[in-house]
């Protein structure tokens, strides 16, 4: 049994930190938690949608609420100081994780989507106008696609889409043709949540900068799964979500180069983000607080840093190696099954997910049947409707992997897919 021996870390030890992985499913979906009829082991392969949360991170949330819950930046009392320090230091941890200079380059947001909107509103609405263009790719998640599309409509800027080749890669000739001296922003997904493609962000960054444009990488699927360094990539902005990387929901981050964030006006106004307010006017707090108006997600921010500590303990290069191993294994096994169409590049050149369709079985039917075998996958358009239109399909099934997934779980997926295929044959 060769593949398991290649695990780059002790997967069983990691699994022990995620009690949810031991739960049984199959009962009544209207009553959360285990109940009558729940007798099938869970095989959770929907990590690109959201990952599970390990005990140390859950403990961090509970420690905060039990021990030092207080508002940040507002109190002189000890609890507020403890909360403020932990919340601020969480920014340092996130900054370190992606190679940013410091906390002034990391704005906490609700998620990737909000980070994208922050730049679109604070920078895009101000800077874009008729004659300008923004270059996206055809494989953008709606988080970036819809955002720039609507900002384009409001400002009169043209929004362009780099072609995706039949192999599921960006057509870099098309990119070179689309990015011109009127391009103000290139906003491209780092790892596609549908195709699994790892896009050449550094190359795109160079192209963008050669034309005086900025580059924004959507790191929602890359930051959780591989080492990402903003300096190495050469990006001006990077967005990612805590809930896809062992953290809680309600927290994400925008990395922005300090001078750019500095020049941008706030996008939300209110408390916490101001320095001095009169009836006539206001001045803004330092970075990053200028962009964090109102009481932030304090427990979530602190837990986000705990999630990063957890991943750092494993080591991001080893996380990537594990993802690669599982993605390649899943790709090969699904392909060997027959009657399965897989989207995107070959198994050894992708992030940790595989989207596919089984001949004659709608993805939703497939997902319903897999659910009977305890196998949780995503079925639908994965928030890439235009890409699905381009591929000529309405929906696809997607299995996505994380640090706690095993080869045996992929075998369970493949067995269940076979059953579904045969049921519909």
């Amino acid at each position, binding site marked *: 049994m060769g593949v398991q021996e290649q695990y780059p870390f002790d997967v069983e030890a990691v699994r022990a930190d995620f009690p949810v992985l031991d739960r049984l499913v199959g*009962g009544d979906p209207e009553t959360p938690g285990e109940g009558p009829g729940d007798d099938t082991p869970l095989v959770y392969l929907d990590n690109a949608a959201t990952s599970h949360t390990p005990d140390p991170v859950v403990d961090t949330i509970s420690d905060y609420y039990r021990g030092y819950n207080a508002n940040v930046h507002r109190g002189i009392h000890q609890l507020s100081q403890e909360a403020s320090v932990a919340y601020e230091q969480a920014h340092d941890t996130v900054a370190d994780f992606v190679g940013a200079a410091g906390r002034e380059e990391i704005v906490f947001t609700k998620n990737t989507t909000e980070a994208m909107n922050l730049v679109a509103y604070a920078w895009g609405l101000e800077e874009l106008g008729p004659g300008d263009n923004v270059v996206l790719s055809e494989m953008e998640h709606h988080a970036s696609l819809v955002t720039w599309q609507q900002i384009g409509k409001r400002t009169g800027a043209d929004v362009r889409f780099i072609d995706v080749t039949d192999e599921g890669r960006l057509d870099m000739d098309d990119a070179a043709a689309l990015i011109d001296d009127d391009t103000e922003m290139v906003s491209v997904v780092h790892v596609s949540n549908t195709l699994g493609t790892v896009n050449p962000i550094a190359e795109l960054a160079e192209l963008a900068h050669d034309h005086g444009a900025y580059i924004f990488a959507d790191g929602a699927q890359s930051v959780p799964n591989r080492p990402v360094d903003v300096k190495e990539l050469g990006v001006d902005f990077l967005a990612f979500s805590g809930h896809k990387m062992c953290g809680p929901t309600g927290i994400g981050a925008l990395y922005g180069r300090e001078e750019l964030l500095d020049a941008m006006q706030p996008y939300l106004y209110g408390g916490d983000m101001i320095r001095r307010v009169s009836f006539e006017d206001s001045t803004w707090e330092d970075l990053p607080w200028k962009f964090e108006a109102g009481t932030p997600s304090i427990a979530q921010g602190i837990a986000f840093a705990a999630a990063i500590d957890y991943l750092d303990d494993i080591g991001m290069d080893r996380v990537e190696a594990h993802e690669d191993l599982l993605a390649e294994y899943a790709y090969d096994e699904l392909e060997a099954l027959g009657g399965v169409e897989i989207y995107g590049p070959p198994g050894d050149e992708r992030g940790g997910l595989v989207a596919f369709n089984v001949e004659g079985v709608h993805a939703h039917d497939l997902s319903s049947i897999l659910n009977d075998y305890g196998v949780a996958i995503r079925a639908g358009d994965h928030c890439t409707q235009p890409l699905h239109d381009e591929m000529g399909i309405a929906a696809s099934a997607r299995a996505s992997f994380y640090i706690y997934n095993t080869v045996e779980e992929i075998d369970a997926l493949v067995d269940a897919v076979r059953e579904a295929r045969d049921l519909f044959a």
Partner: protein
Amino acid sequence: MGLGSDMYRQQILDHYKNPRNYGELEDPDFTHIGENPSCGDTIRMEVALDDAEETIEAVRFTGDGCAISMASASMLSERLHGMAVDDLDALDTDDITEMLGVDISPMRVKCAVLGRQVAQDGSKIHRGELDPDDRTNLEA
């Protein structure tokens, strides 16, 4: 067995693989199309009424989608033959799940009821009670 396999009992698979009343009518009184964009389910229903426009005389449908939406439309098309228009209006979600004879998981209900919604909306448009530009969209 959980909901999933139950949902795919023989009857549903049979209607999915061999849909009844699949196709178009020569001279329908109304035609309507509806969709669930995120599923990609699309159903087009054509209905012919009697002279008094009180009773459904013939139904044909075409469509593309998951087994639940297609089987439901197929079974519904059989039920609609000879049904009073008033009774079509009164069909609710429970009637559809009863017709399907299986438990439908909460996330799949909109698949199951798409055909019914298309027929009902088409009928309302025909009577002038709904804007003809309204495309049935259960996710709107």
